[in-house]
Structure formats: C-alpha cells, structure tokens
C-alpha cells in the first residue's frame, strides 16, 4: 500500500528510487525525504527519479515531481526521470511534464546524462579562465 522512497547519492546527484503508487496518499511521503536530503546538503545539484517500481501515477503524483523540479531549478540543476514504466511515461506526456523533465531508460543512463563530457567540461574551464583574463 504505502509508497517507498530510497535515497542515495552519486556526487552532486541525489538519486530517489520510488516504489508503489504515486497519489495523494503518497505525496508527503515522497516530498519530505527528498526535500530534507536536498536542504541538508548544499553540494547537491541534480535529481534522478528512478520510477521503475511505480505502479500508478496521477496528476497529484506529477505535481510532486514538478515540485521537486522547482527545488532543483533553484540551484540551477536538472531532473532526470529514469526507468519509467510505459503507463507512467504516458501520464507524464499527457500532463505536459515531459517539456520540463528529461527521460532516461535506466539510472546509469540518467547519471551519464548529468555528467558533462570531459572534453566539454575542460572547454568550459578554459573559456571561464579566458574570460577572467580579459
């Protein structure tokens, strides 16, 4: 019945694995541990929501996801939804939430998406240094 949320960390990324039904009864149980972990660690920048175990998602569940999107945006981060079952994905589409969220097939792909490729990262560092020199 109850929803389950398991949190872990991969560098600047908070990973939340959610299992069960994402509805009104589950909203606070999902919102609170994520917000707490986020507020308690200023190094966190991105959020991965692994929805592999989600068996139901309604608009209240989507509102919980988009609420976390706002939290993450406030630090300039990104939210990636990983492993969403097809019904969950369809609901994310219908609601328009996919305009704001990124999708990944699994957690690994999600983490890869959030890691800037070394070449680009280096280029960015160079650019930044160049800018400071001007």
């Amino acid at each position, binding site marked *: 019945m109850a929803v389950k949320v398991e949190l872990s960390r991969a560098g600047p990324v908070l990973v939340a694995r959610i299992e069960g039904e994402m*509805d*009104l009864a589950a*909203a606070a149980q999902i919102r609170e541990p994520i917000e707490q972990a986020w507020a308690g660690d200023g190094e966190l920048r991105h959020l991965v929501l692994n929805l592999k175990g989600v068996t*139901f998602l*309604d*608009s209240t569940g989507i509102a919980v996801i988009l*609420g976390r999107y706002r939290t993450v945006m406030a630090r300039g981060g990104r939210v990636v939804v990983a492993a969403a079952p097809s019904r969950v994905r369809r609901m994310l589409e219908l*609601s*328009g939430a996919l305009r704001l969220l990124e999708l990944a097939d699994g957690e690994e792909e999600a983490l890869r998406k959030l890691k800037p490729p070394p070449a680009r990262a280096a280029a960015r560092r160079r650019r930044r240094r160049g800018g400071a020199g001007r």
Partner: protein
Amino acid sequence: MNRGYGPPAGDWWDRPDAFWLSCPATPANVGFARAVVAAFAARLPFTLDEIEEIKLAVSEVVSNVVLHAYDVPGGPLRLGARVVDGLLEVVVEDDGRGIEDVAQAMQPGYSRLGEEHLGIGLTVAETYMSQLDIDSSPGVGTRVRMRKRPAAAAGT
C-alpha cells in the same frame, strides 16, 4: 444533495448491476476508491489499459473531493458505479463547498490551490473517460458523473 453518508438518488437501483459506497474523504481512501471501481469494472470487457484509465479518472475526481470539497478534511464521500447499457457509469459526490464556475474548473491549468496543484485533474479524467459531467451547487456539494464504454464493445 447534502446527504451525508446516505443512499444514492432514487433511480440509482433501476440498473441492478450497481453498487453505492460511502466513506470519509481522506487521502487513504483515494487508492481505496480506485481499487473498488476497478474491481467492479472487471465485469465489463475492458482491457487492462482501459482499467488503468478508469483508475486514473477515479483517482483524480476523488482526490478533488479530498483536496477541495471540505475546509475540515474527512467529510462525506459517496462513490457509486453501475452498468448502463453496456457502459460503466461512475458517480462521485460530496457535500462540500461546490464549484462556482464549472467551465473554469474544467480548464486545464486552473486550480483553486497554488503550489503543487496543476489544475489538470479534471482534464485527465475527461481525457480517459468517454463522458464527464459536473453538477455542483456552491455551498451544497458536487456530483461528478463519468461514463466509459469498453472499446471491445464499440458498435454493439
């Protein structure tokens, strides 16, 4: 309306394949209501995907009663379903604040609450059911009636 945990409108039992249920409008009863309607709908030739769509619509409409109808949570929620000429009919009633402007409430994006309320619940329910009607009197209550025809029964 305004019938507390009472029985349905007089003509409800004209269709013998029906149930009527009362319970308080609480978050725990959102999932319960979903499961009840899904179990009832199994007597019609719905596909598993259609049953999921019905659950979604019930979840949206019942969540609205929990979120919007009452100032003090836990007021009466009435839920019924019946088979009408091969269609599933679902009715959700409350004795809450009612809706002043139903057309506005149906607009995607409109919500009386801010923060984390998307205002798309009724749109989602309407999308997944064949028909959705709202009958509401401010200060008295709201009645949402939805119908869905099994795709397998189309044209029959």
